[in-house]
């Protein structure tokens, strides 16, 4: 129906009928809107109850001194002032940042490397095999993995040191030396998390247009140049996404250091979340723990913001 015909027909319809039609259309729209709200309500309620309300509650709690047992006492910004002067907090944020950078860099490089290698495989079954194999650790419980890895990395009785010493190499104090413990945390976390990054990169590499790759080949680009000059720029949005997700996860690292080293030796692997746990659940300073949580949230937001700002120059959108 053309616009002209429609206008003519509308003109012939009496005003009263047109009003009735408009009201009906509005009702229809409302019904549709209500259904839409109903559909998203579950997700909204879930996010509100388990994300927004706890964040707001945590923000409120950070202004109080509360030991769980006695009633909370309003202390204003005292928890934040104390946090700024607390050396252990600064240290734990430093530890968290170092671990997060190490984890994200290794996870991205390893994930991309594995994805490139698997993507080159011609046979579908081998691609499926590697995809499944690299993704499997992600499905395992982090607690179980950490306990298991704790045994493997044990300085005296662990399997890794057993093989190292059996070939004449010195045993490494994986978990009992500050540097060793941090390296072990990075390795264990990356081992379990790399599957996620890998799967993202495999999907992204598969979607790189073949004509672009063919054009690069015709222009004489070898595999390395194609990878760095064509593929990586084309999958840069995925790299950004993977980096942001990995960074957010790594900044909240808890299970691995808590189970394997209890944050030690000393405070070498005491991440911000472990410190938060200690302050809240062990030292009964829930207000202070909430203040740490709020600062951690802000730091994660700032880092994510920086990543997006950097992405403006580095990420290529088709």
């Amino acid at each position: 129906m053309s616009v002209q015909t429609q206008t003519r027909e509308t003109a012939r319809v009496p005003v009263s009928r047109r009003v009735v039609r408009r009201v009906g259309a509005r009702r229809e729209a409302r019904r549709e809107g209500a259904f839409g709200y109903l559909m998203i309500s579950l997700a909204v309620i879930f996010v509100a109850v388990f994300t927004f309300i706890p964040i707001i509650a945590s923000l409120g709690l950070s202004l109080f001194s509360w030991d769980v047992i006695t009633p909370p006492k309003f202390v204003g910004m005292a928890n934040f002032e104390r946090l700024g002067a607390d050396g252990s907090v600064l240290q734990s944020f430093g530890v968290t940042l170092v671990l997060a950078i190490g984890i994200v860099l290794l996870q991205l490089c390893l994930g991309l490397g594995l994805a490139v290698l698997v993507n080159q495989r011609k046979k579908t079954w081998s691609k499926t095999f590697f995809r499944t194999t690299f993704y499997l650790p992600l499905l395992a419980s982090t607690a179980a993995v950490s306990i298991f890895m704790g045994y493997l990395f044990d300085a005296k009785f662990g399997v890794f040191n057993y093989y190292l010493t059996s070939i004449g190499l010195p045993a490494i104090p994986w978990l009992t030396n500050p540097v060793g413990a941090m390296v072990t945390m990075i390795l264990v976390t990356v081992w379990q998390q790399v599957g996620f990054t890998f799967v993202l990169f495999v999907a992204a590499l598969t979607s790189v247009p073949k004509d672009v790759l063919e054009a690069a080949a015709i222009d004489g680009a070898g595999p390395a140049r194609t990878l760095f000059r064509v593929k990586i720029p084309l999958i840069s949005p995925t790299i950004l996404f993977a980096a942001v997700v990995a960074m957010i996860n790594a900044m909240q690292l808890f299970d691995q250091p808590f189970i394997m080293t209890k944050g030690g030796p000393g405070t070498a692997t005491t991440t911000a979340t472990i410190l938060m746990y200690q302050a809240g659940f062990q030292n009964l300073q829930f207000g202070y723990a909430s203040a740490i949580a709020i600062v951690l949230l802000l730091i994660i937001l700032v880092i994510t913001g920086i990543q997006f700002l950097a992405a403006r120059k580095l990420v290529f959108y088709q």
Partner: protein
Amino acid sequence: MTNAFRTVVDRRTLLKLGAAGFASAGLASLAGCSSAGAGGGSGPRTIKMLYFGQQSAATTLQKSLQPQIKKLDKTATLEVSAINGTDWNDFLAKVLTQIASGSAPDLVSVATEGLQLMASKELLIPLDSYVTKDMSSLQSYFDDIHPALIESMMYQGHLYELPDSFNAGSMFYSTDIVQKAGLSSPAAGWTMDDFHTYATKMGGLGGNVNAFDWVVRLWGSWTSFLYANDGNLLEEGKYSGGDWLWKKAYAKNPTAAAGRGGGWKWGTPTANSPAAVEALEYLIDLQRSKLSPSPDVGGGGTLQGLFSSGRIGMTIGGGFWAGGLHNAGMKNGSFDVQLFPTWKSNKSLFGAGGYGIFNSSKNKDLAWEVVKMMVRPESFDIMFPGNVTTPGRKSLMTAERYKTTGPEHWSVFYDQLNGSVPISAPPYYNALATSLNQRTTQAISSGNAKAALDGMQADFEKAAKAS
């Protein structure tokens, strides 16, 4: 496509649904409140108890104790909830979280670690009036239990728990490794020099045998060496008071009650005292000399596994290790125990376990009857089957008890109590334990005991000030 949406919920219905949802939630919460409050009424009463262990064990315990609870009150039922944890620190954190959620139980089994914390926050009630009222029926209990255990459950002159179990830090050893090293079993009264000789000879066996191993924690850690070195993490003292108990309960045995007060008073931190530095340095030296591996933090599962598989010559343990090693497959005779070696003193440490009543309980009188029931001799093996702790009542320490599990010198467990001091667990125990773990691992990794203990001292001072 639009028509498909016509039959679905309109805005008014949606609002109705929302209102109904809120109403249901409100009713549910009210129902929750009313059921919590019902405990104080005349209807059926439920005594809720928190138990440190697996839920399967808690359920078994609940079933076993149920008939006895019914004898106390036909309408009463016992509900035992398990709380898992690697150590008492972990247990306490979870108990406190549960209390924060508003579901405080009636009874709790708390070890020395948490006693002063809970008493100082008035979570537990003093049992003084109950004990005084029932002194005659409790006399057999007081006649049978070591006064040191009773004193360890007192705070500021009041008794907060009736203890039924304890573990004192003695020295366990593998009889097989002792023999292989050409040694005879250590004798009572052995010294730190003897211990070092044993460690050196065991270390000389080579292979994957380590002479000694330990766990980083407050109980039975390098702290045992600290106590033997006549030191402590905090200044030792005692609260005044407690005469109401000692004069009556131990009237027949005034010697046992002599010098007892109103509970242990933990004073100024002394974590970086010369005795502490020397004790921790000794342990670091053992590791440097490859006589001891790097210890685990908390728990003790790994240590138990290593000991039971013949890789450890000696370690610190209490009566709980008899059942633990037996359950891990060690046969009676393959391990034994001796008093902790003396250093500058014969002081050793212990931790006790018992039962306290929550201040928030609506059934305090019934809870008290349950507490009395649980410290009866016949309740001990229901509570702790298989020698997983040491009985507090001396009459239960028999050769028959240790016939299956061992060790041969089981009497050491109780003898160790003489001259021993409870682990230093002040009201700020949680912060103390966190710092102890961190600073100890710092000392081990850096090899600098003094610097780590200076840090520990500062942590303790800060925690003491904040408490």
